[in-house]
């Protein structure tokens, strides 16, 4: 996981409205990632209808020195991660792991009663930002995994 260099994490809502976008690399301006996130929407819809089963959609496209990965939840929330292309091969498993952590962070955030699910507002939450920050900078879990067990207790 150490070789993965995340440049940007973006979260897109149901109506293709941006929910959250975070730039981790100083090499590109934020605007570029807005463009990338925007262009990814159609590709993701297409992939999701083709590759029915998994929420992880793999590499969406590459441009210049960046490669774009996508993930779409059952509730049609789209997560986009942009990587700076490294010299080594990126394993799908690592990417899935990253997306799963983003998903956890999002679910935790959606459980917040003060967050309106369909409000289409950008996400503003300190906790959520910390979690995404930890993922983006490649740090291990912080604060434990709150959703480690969601099945009802036996």
């Amino acid at each position, binding site marked *: 996981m150490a070789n993965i260099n995340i440049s940007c994490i973006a979260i897109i809502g149901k109506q293709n409205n941006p929910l959250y976008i975070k730039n981790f690399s100083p090499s590109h301006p934020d605007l570029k990632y807005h463009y990338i996130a925007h262009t990814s929407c159609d590709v993701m819809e297409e992939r999701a209808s083709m590759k029915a089963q998994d929420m992880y959609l793999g590499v969406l496209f590459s441009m210049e020195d960046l490669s774009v990965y996508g993930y779409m939840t059952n509730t049609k929330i789209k997560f986009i991660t942009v990587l700076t292309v490294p010299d080594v091969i990126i394993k799908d498993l690592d990417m899935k792991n990253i997306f799963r952590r983003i998903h956890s962070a*999002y679910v935790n955030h959606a459980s917040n009663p003060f967050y309106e699910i369909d409000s289409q507002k950008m996400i503003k939450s300190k906790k959520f930002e910390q979690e995404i920050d930890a993922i983006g900078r490649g740090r291990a879990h912080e604060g434990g995994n709150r959703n480690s067990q969601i099945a009802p207790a036996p």
Partner: protein
Amino acid sequence: MAANQILPKQVNESIVEFLTTEMVEAMVRTVKDDALKLSSERDTAHGNPNDGAGGPKDYSEGDEAMEAVYYKLEMIGFRVGERLIEKISKDRMRFTDNLDVVKFICKEVWMFLFKKQIDNLKTNHRGVYVLQDNNFRWFTRMANDQSSAESVKRVTPYLWFPCGILRGILSNLGIASVVVAETSSLPACTFQIKIAKTA
């Protein structure tokens, strides 16, 4: 195991049951009181103060106050369902079609909410799904010694919250639907989901 790991949730079921029944009761009580106050104000303005006020609260369907109760309870359920599905669909594969979603509701969602699965699922393959639960968990404690028509009437408001949950779940999965529930004999009940045709 990390020191700050949060333990899995364990919820006292009695409390949940009391809370859900009390939520319905409180809603009926407050909304009915408001309606009575309103109507009595209106009546005094018209000069006959004794009409409509002070009668016992009944659960008769069709009147405006019950519509308001229905709307509120259904909306609570809707919002609960919306959030709930984010949580329980997290580790699930993507749904292939509407039937897949309804099956998921019958099995996993029902298991999550009521610790049992739906007993019978019927569909006409044109967007109507009938989910039958022969032993609805929230009804198991309800006594059934009145005439059956009376108890059916009394129990109807308790179905609106779960109806809302189902609609919220479906809505957040991108399926617009109408959910109605009815019961003919306690503790059995049926939920009918009508999914609007996607063009």
